[in-house]
């Protein structure tokens, strides 16, 4: 179906975009990062693992869905039935597939009532994606958009990932919670973790302003900083109605996302 490279010779990467608090911009970062990779010619799969508040189905206006990620984790369908090819919507040489969480109230209720044994099997199925998608189907990147905090689905995503990208803000309670998660969650699972500081208020025209923010973040978390995204009114005004890096490629936000994608690609090739 999507074959490109020979089995076994592929070195793809799984990333989980996570945060302590909700509303830090995980989904926005996930969508735009995935699009940046596609623009660079990569084969990407973006998965909505936020089963409590699914958003990708609405964002991409996909209604007729054959199988949801819920079904894959339930063991009632294979992953190739879940993935939807939306490459035609992106201007780039790569490919973009999405795996959606079922946004119906019934499905959300059902997912929140799963027991530990089900969660254990769900972890097994997420771990299987490394073979079925990275090795067999030669995907370059799987991006898991997760739910915030310590939820089963998000910790399963973290355990399955090679890299955890933490979307954080300077909100005080978010800073304290993120610090705790760095030591009490990501470190325990020995995960490579990078931070993206989102919606930061600083003068983007001043280089020293950016350096000061970078210093502040490093002192705060002692964790590598993947990117600093200023608070842009244009992004807020877009109201999540389009893919920003696609529609406004010359905007500073898009350039920052491109740089973040480049950094990840460089670290992947080392």
């Amino acid at each position, binding site marked *: 179906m999507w074959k490109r490279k020979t089995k076994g010779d592929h070195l793809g990467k799984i990333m989980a975009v996570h945060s302590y608090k909700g509303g830090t911009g995980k989904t926005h970062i996930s969508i735009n990062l995935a699009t940046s990779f596609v623009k660079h010619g990569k084969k990407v799969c973006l998965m909505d693992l936020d089963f409590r508040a699914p958003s990708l189905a609405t964002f991409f206006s996909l209604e007729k869905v054959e199988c949801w990620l819920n079904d894959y984790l339930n063991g009632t369908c294979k992953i190739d039935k879940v993935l939807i090819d939306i490459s035609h919507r992106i201007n780039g040489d790569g490919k973009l597939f999405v795996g959606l969480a079922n946004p119906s109230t019934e499905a959300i209720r059902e997912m929140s009532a799963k027991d530990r044994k089900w*969660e254990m099997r769900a*972890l097994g199925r997420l771990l299987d994606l490394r073979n079925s998608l990275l090795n067999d189907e030669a995907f370059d990147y799987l991006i898991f958009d997760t739910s915030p905090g310590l939820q089963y689905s998000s*910790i399963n995503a973290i*355990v399955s990932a090679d890299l955890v990208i933490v979307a954080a803000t300077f909100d005080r309670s978010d800073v304290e919670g993120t610090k705790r998660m760095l030591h009490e969650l990501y470190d325990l699972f020995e995960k490579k973790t990078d931070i993206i500081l989102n919606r930061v208020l600083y003068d983007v025209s001043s280089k020293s302003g950016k350096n000061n923010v970078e210093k502040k973040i490093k002192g705060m978390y002692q964790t590598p900083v993947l990117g600093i995204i200023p608070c842009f009114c244009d992004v807020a005004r877009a109201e999540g109605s389009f893919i920003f890096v696609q529609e406004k490629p010359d905007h500073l936000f898009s350039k920052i996302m491109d740089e973040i994608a480049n950094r990840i690609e460089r670290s992947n090739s080392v």
Partner: protein
Amino acid sequence: MYTCKTLWGTSVTKQEFLGRKPLRVLEKIKENLEKLNEKMEIMIELQKRGRKDFQPLADAPLDVMTLLSMPDHLRKTAMTVCRLGRATAEEVAQQTHRARAVESGYLNQLVIMGHLEKERKGRKAYFYVEKEDQG
């Protein structure tokens, strides 16, 4: 044919003892030593827990919250088995960069705790979380 019993109850032929198959004999000895080692590890673990019987604790799913609450050394082993799906102590040791005997001890401990299952096939013991068709 003349046979004798080793310390561990395995039959070895006279010819084997006379050196026609010395490698095979050594392999058998190694295999038996490994089995003995595993049994001792289980006995030590049971003694620690003050139990005399070897009945794994039933229904202890290896979910992420359980992984989080485990001591670091066991979590590393358990996560490696989760990633590999099914593995021997040797294969786990290759991933964790710890000694095979150390991993064997941790794996058996996880079996006793009810988090892993163990299946012996020939000389090799395989550890896994659960079979797909179970429960």
